């Protein structure tokens, strides 16, 4: 028999157990109210737009004050394109424009 280190079955189990624990350490994610904050801000936009209905450019400018990465839809037509990420929160409303015509607005905000 060659000289060297021979592990017994018990030490192999211990090593496997050790490796399992090393890989299963779960660092908890930072809990926050970010999602609620985004929903509130989306609703702020929709609320203000319901008071004074803006044109497409104004909508994008308003939304850019609050969000960096978002999609904006007006009657299912995309008027601003964001970079899709894993997490997204959307809000939708049907508003009356200045000619009292129904306009469907949807905003989807993406975040990490």
């Amino acid at each position, binding site marked *: 028999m060659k000289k060297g*280190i*021979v*592990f*017994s079955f*018990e*030490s192999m189990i*211990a*090593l496997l157990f*050790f490796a399992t*624990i*090393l890989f299963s*350490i779960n*660092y*908890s994610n*930072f*809990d*926050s*109210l970010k999602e*609620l*904050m985004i929903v*509130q*801000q989306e609703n*702020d*936009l929709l*609320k*203000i737009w319901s*008071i*004074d209905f803006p044109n497409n450019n104004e909508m994008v400018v*308003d939304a850019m*004050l*609050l969000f960096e990465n978002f999609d904006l839809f007006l009657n299912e037509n995309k008027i601003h394109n964001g970079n899709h990420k894993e997490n997204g929160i959307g809000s939708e409303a049907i508003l009356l424009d200045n000619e009292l015509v129904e306009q469907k607005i949807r905003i989807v905000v993406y975040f990490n």
Partner: protein
Amino acid sequence: MTITSKGIIFSMDALVAFIIVLFMLFIFVLTLNNQTDNLTQNVGHFFLEEKVMLVADSLIKNYNEENSLLGACFFDFDKKRVLTNEINSNALTNLKSLGLKDFFIKSVSYETKTRRKKYDLENKIGDCLTVQRFVLIDGEKGLLFVEGCI
């Protein structure tokens, strides 16, 4: 491990197992410590976030004559309705501290295309967070910032 007349001899197996147990204990304590720290930070930050968001939401959704920190909106007396998200800048001169021990609002400010103003409520130092909301200030679109601290 073998006990002989000359003393104790450790086997390689026992040594490996012993080192692994020590490492596991070390990692367990380290993880526990990290988790406890994270939890403490999370609870503190969560508390701060919750309170600042609550005050900011109250400010832009309510009308309060006594303390406009709890509501600075216009009020339509004919319709008996609070005009939510429509801030009266004059009401912001009546911002009063909440007088809580573990939380305070440091400042409230707003920014529109033409105006920018900040109202300082407290001069204390703490761990602070600013919440921004989109509002109409005297009919002009802008951002309202509420800075709260613990």
